[in-house]
């Protein structure tokens, strides 16, 4: 079945938008893994927590824009607590136990969310300034999706500037590369770890706040986005923010076209891509060999 060119373009846009959302969630995860060697399952929990915090802030204040700031900060603080008081204690047991701990946190977060907000999906009100749609190529395209795109790009630019240009950013990059060495050179590595973990959590929460109105806010949302995020990290490479961007866009567009062209097999595409990467470049497109 042939579609008009416009439809392909629109689908590509859909894919890029979703890809940006994936990037928001994947960026923090890949940084934490690259630097601390921990596959942080709690990350999905923070994403979900962000969505729920966002919902509450909007419900309480009526202001969506406020939630974009408050929710990530709140979750970032939670993330800081988790790193400082839980994760750090199991560091000496090895990576497997760190992973398991973050997993326990993820589970507990899922249950906390159900406890305080209930099991049913919640709908978050999009502010009037972002509702409605734009007319592109003969189709109507929702403003909110463009907003997601804009957010993603903004975060990407800020993150890139921060990591590449500021001293802290350079320290973080060094720590991703070789935490031990950086510590030996006098940097307070625990503080860097704490910072990256907290910021990563905040980023995930931001993704959650933004995703809430788009994908709906429900207890299983963390787990659902996790698969795509995993594939992004595998394809993009661990520790590489740039890889996360490229991979997110690839996965987003791939999913989009998959749903359009072969809806039954849409899921398979990303796994095929992942399998190919695993054979051809096992460390991901931009990952570093250990």
């Amino acid at each position, binding site marked *: 079945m042939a579609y008009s060119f416009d439809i392909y373009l629109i689908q590509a846009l859909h894919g890029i938008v979703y890809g940006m959302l994936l990037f928001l969630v994947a960026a923090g995860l890949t940084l934490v893994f690259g630097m601390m060697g921990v596959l942080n399952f709690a990350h999905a929990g923070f994403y979900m927590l962000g969505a729920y915090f966002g919902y509450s802030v909007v419900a309480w204040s009526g202001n969506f824009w406020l939630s974009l700031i408050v929710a990530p900060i709140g979750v970032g603080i939670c993330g800081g607590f988790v790193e400082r008081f839980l994760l750090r204690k199991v560091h000496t047991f090895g990576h*497997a136990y760190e992973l398991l701990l973050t997993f326990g*946190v*993820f589970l*507990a977060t*899922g249950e906390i969310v159900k406890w305080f907000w209930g099991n049913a999906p919640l709908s978050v009100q999009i502010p009037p300034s972002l509702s409605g749609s734009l007319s592109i190529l003969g189709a109507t395209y929702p403003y909110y999706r463009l907003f997601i795109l804009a957010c993603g790009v903004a975060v990407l630019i800020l993150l890139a500037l921060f990591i590449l240009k500021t001293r802290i950013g350079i320290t973080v990059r060094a720590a991703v590369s070789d935490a031990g060495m950086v510590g030996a050179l006098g940097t307070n590595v625990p503080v860097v770890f704490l910072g990256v973990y907290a910021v990563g959590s905040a980023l995930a929460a931001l993704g959650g706040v933004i995703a809430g109105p788009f994908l709906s806010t429900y207890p299983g949302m963390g787990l659902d986005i996790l698969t795509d995020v995993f594939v992004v990290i*595998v394809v993009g490479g661990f520790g590489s923010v740039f890889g996360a961007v490229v991979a997110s866009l690839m996965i987003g567009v791939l999913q989009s076209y998959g749903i359009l062209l072969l809806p039954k097999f849409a899921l398979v595409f990303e796994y095929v891509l992942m399998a190919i990467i695993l054979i051809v470049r096992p460390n991901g497109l931009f990952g570093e060999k250990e």
Partner: protein
Amino acid sequence: MKPLLTKGAVALVLLALIALAPRCVPVTHVNMLSEIAFFSLFALSFNMLFGYCGLLSFGHSAYFGIGAYTLVLILKHFTGMPLLLALFVGGIAGGLGGLLVGFFCVRLKGGYFALLTMAFNQFFFAIALKWRSLTGGDDGMSLSRPDLHLPGLGVFSMGRPANVYYLIVAIVLLCVFLQWRLIKTPYGNAVRAVKENDERAGFVGYNVYLTRLSLYAFSAFFAGIAGSLFALFEGFIATSVIDAQMSMQVTFMAFIGGVNSFFGPILGAGVYLYFTDWVSRVTDRWEFVLGVLFILLVMYAHTGLIGFVSLDKIKYFLRIKAGIKGTDK
């Protein structure tokens, strides 16, 4: 004085208890014991990878589920096949799944490996969910339990809990024995060497990739057997048999019991099943309790509960009870 409480004596007592259980114990407990049996096998298969080779297979329910679905499908479409063979084929199917996943994943380290096994787990789950014509999707499939024909011994209906119990326990004990023995072979030694220093193992002539891949396939085989037994026991399966939660459960069981000991996962399965059974009756928030307890376990008792159970401690306890003085352990 010859010690009364040797490992052999304990084993015999346990075996006797296991054999007599259906006669002494109400049916619900017999069913619980059956569950503990095949979940133990599942947890042991998980620990073959983690405890003995350092590979964290976080998506292990894939092979459990493949085994379960295979059994149901075989019994549905090949009605003539003997039950034991069908169970075995379930294991083989699981093993093949492991071979496929292992092929991609086993080269990679630690967290990367764990993540990928999860991703593949999701892949198999998605297939089970979407291929409704084959698997029934989230409605699931039921199976009618065939009779067990043992040449020379007769025909046993699998409708009786006691029969199912004995079959499950017998198969699990066999598998446990095979695993236990495998560890003591040169192959088991190679697995351990790869765990302790995979670089040096390679330089000494061990094919690390093949060792890990084969171990993964063996582990998946045993998980598949456990899954087949699960299907036989339940009489009904749905996508919950192959989902992320099932993978979580087996991970919990192994760690609660203790991953540094062979029998730890068995203890873990028992504790987990009894505990979740009890706690879910006490509160609706039992999953939260589980999550918190798990966090505490990882932080404060990461070697598992088996550390609190040992033959020496049992002897000591019995001596105190008997009022014997002195504590030569």
